């Protein structure tokens, strides 16, 4: 299994600002994923990030709002841009092509 870390673990941000979340995996992986979990809800896939190619976004999510980088096989970032209170969620990254393992999540609160 992969061990995944995320930074920051939590943040409180002002409306209109942006936050970049980092995800580090302890081994090289082809597939990394970003999820959002809104309060009281289940996980929703934002995008899939493969190294060396553009991220693939799910319906309802766009690159301008959630730009993703994947510079190598162990690291990815997700930026939440021009934030509003509706973006308050837990953001999780995961890795693995068959069994997916999750990072500890980033709890974001937008005021």
């Amino acid at each position, binding site marked *: *299994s992969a061990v995944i870390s995320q930074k920051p673990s939590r943040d409180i941000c002002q409306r209109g600002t942006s936050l970049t979340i980092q995800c580090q995996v302890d081994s090289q992986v082809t*597939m990394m*994923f970003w999820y959002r979990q809104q309060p009281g*809800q*289940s*996980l*929703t*896939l934002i995008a*899939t990030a*493969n190294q060396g190619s553009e991220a*693939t976004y*799910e319906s309802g999510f766009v690159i301008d709002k959630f730009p993703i980088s994947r510079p190598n096989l162990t690291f990815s970032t997700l930026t939440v841009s021009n934030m509003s209170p509706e973006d308050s969620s*837990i953001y*999780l990254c*995961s890795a693995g*092509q*068959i*069994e*997916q*393992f*999750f*990072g*500890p*999540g980033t*709890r974001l609160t937008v005021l």
Partner: protein
Amino acid sequence: EDKVVQSPLSLVVHEGDTVTLNCSYEVTNFRSLLWYKQEKKAPTFLFMLTSSGIEKKSGRLSSILDKKELFSILNITATQTGDSAVYLCAVGVGSQGNLIFGKGTKLSVKP
């Protein structure tokens, strides 16, 4: 539209009871079914199932998949208070194995 439905949404039992959690799905391009336990932020991996009729076991937890009837169950025997959590069912679809999550079953085990 792909969907994963879990039942019940919540369940309260006493220590020592046995519980069965249900997960049904309707997806195109099924690849796998995964169970996770979520206590605070990060879902922790329990099982991955790809073949019908083969039970997977880990201690007091077990799970089985029925690909004909499109459902899976997660059994927990001799429940303990530490089993209290949200149990998430997710179905992997497509070549990248993107996960579609159910809403989860919130299990509360009373002493």
